């Protein structure tokens, strides 16, 4: 889409929860039916609005997890001191309706015609928009070489683990590498530390292959990965970043 395209106003849309999938003990995928939803591009996000009985409202933004054309899904991680995420993870149930607005964001986006190779680096629930890209690639563009580096605290906190393993098995052009920073299962032979320059040098595409990198996670993770990739020779314009907002808010 041309950056100068003029869109009509994005309006709040009623959305019915049709399915909820527990991903980890703290994260849940919510699949919505939204009759008039405009198709998104992988990497975009949406706004959620909740309204209490007395009219009080709260709004937050969440990355879209599904590929364009699939039923619209977000994955939400519960923040214990959050206002909206505990409701979405623990309370909302199929048949309930909330309001959604979007899709939003035109920069942190990948479409198959952008090509690759692509390097996706996820810190924790930062995997969500990257999963939309991996799913998009699997549906349309599986010949684009892709690597996903996923940093999680423990294996139990890896979101989409079964699907990622299935995709990596089915698709020779997709590699998935984990690093577990807080605890590892017995016999773990993979990476077990925070991402650093050496780990990136071993997992990211060499800069001479002109890769496109997408990095999403908490600020410390994004800073480390983005600086590491620039250090490996990636032009800064080929490193797209997205960070979590306030830790206490979602």
């Amino acid at each position, binding site marked *: 889409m041309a950056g*100068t395209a003029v869109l009509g106003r994005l309006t709040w849309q009623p959305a019915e929860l049709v399915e909820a999938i527990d991903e980890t003990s703290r994260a849940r995928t919510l699949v919505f039916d939204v009759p008039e939803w405009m198709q998104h591009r992988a990497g975009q996000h949406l706004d959620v609005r909740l*309204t*209490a009985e007395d009219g009080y*409202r709260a*709004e937050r933004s969440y990355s879209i997890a599904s590929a364009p054309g699939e039923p619209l899904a977000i994955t939400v991680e519960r923040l214990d001191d959050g206002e909206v995420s505990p409701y979405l993870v623990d309370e909302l149930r199929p048949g309930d*309706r909330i309001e959604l607005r979007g899709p939003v964001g035109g*920069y942190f986006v990948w479409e198959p015609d952008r090509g690759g190779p692509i390097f996706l680096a996820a810190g924790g629930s930062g995997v969500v928009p990257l999963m939309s890209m991996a799913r998009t690639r699997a549906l349309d563009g599986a010949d684009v070489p892709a690597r996903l580096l996923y940093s999680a605290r423990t294996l139990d906190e890896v979101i989409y683990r079964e699907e990622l393993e299935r995709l990596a098995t089915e698709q020779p052009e997709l590699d998935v590498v984990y690093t577990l920073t807080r605890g590892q299962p017995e016999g773990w032979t993979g990476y077990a530390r925070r991402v650093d320059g050496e780990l990136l040098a071993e997992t990211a595409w060499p800069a001479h292959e002109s890769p496109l990198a997408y990095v999403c996670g908490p600020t410390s993770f994004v*800073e480390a990965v*983005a600086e590491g990739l620039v250090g490996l020779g990636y032009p800064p314009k080929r490193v797209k970043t997205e960070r979590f907002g306030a830790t206490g*808010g979602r």
Partner: protein
Amino acid sequence: MSFVSRGFRGRRRDDADADARTPPGQYLTDDFPVLSAGPTPHTPLDRWSFEIRGAGEPKVWTWDEFRALPTEKPTVDIHCVTRWSKLDTEWEGVSVDTLLAEAGEDAPFVVAFCDGGYTTNLALEDVTDGKAWVAFAFDGEPLDPEHGGPARLLVPHLYFWKSAKWVRGLQLRDDDEPGFWETNGYHNHGDPWQEQRYWGD
């Protein structure tokens, strides 16, 4: 149309002053979240300059010259389009009024340009009369690179993407040229009290 979200109660504040200062759709945070589209640039101060480009010769300040200009210490509320707001943030910077007066330039629009290639567009009236600064300190400390240091634009009455990080200058223009986020789905003006978040708002 709106409707009740079953079982949602929300978390209210019992603070009418804070409520009155929080624009619609925002929530208050004590954190200072970081948002940027790419790697953080690190320009050494001896290679840093600030520039006003207009009809005449550009006016250029080195870091030392910039820091010799009179400064102000605004305490302001800031509002990010990703929905956090932060009250009473304390900055130090040079007023854009001061910079424009020194440069002697005038035009109806400006584009802020930055290390890393980021741009954002503003009407001149949104950066003059005490409404905008080039800030180099936050909370009494030099501005961290991840928050835009060595210097960022500070335009607190608009959504915070207008407060361009790593700013290196202002280009004065006769026409309004949409910047980075303004061509990527976000509103051209960005007034949080009007909820001008996205195209068409």
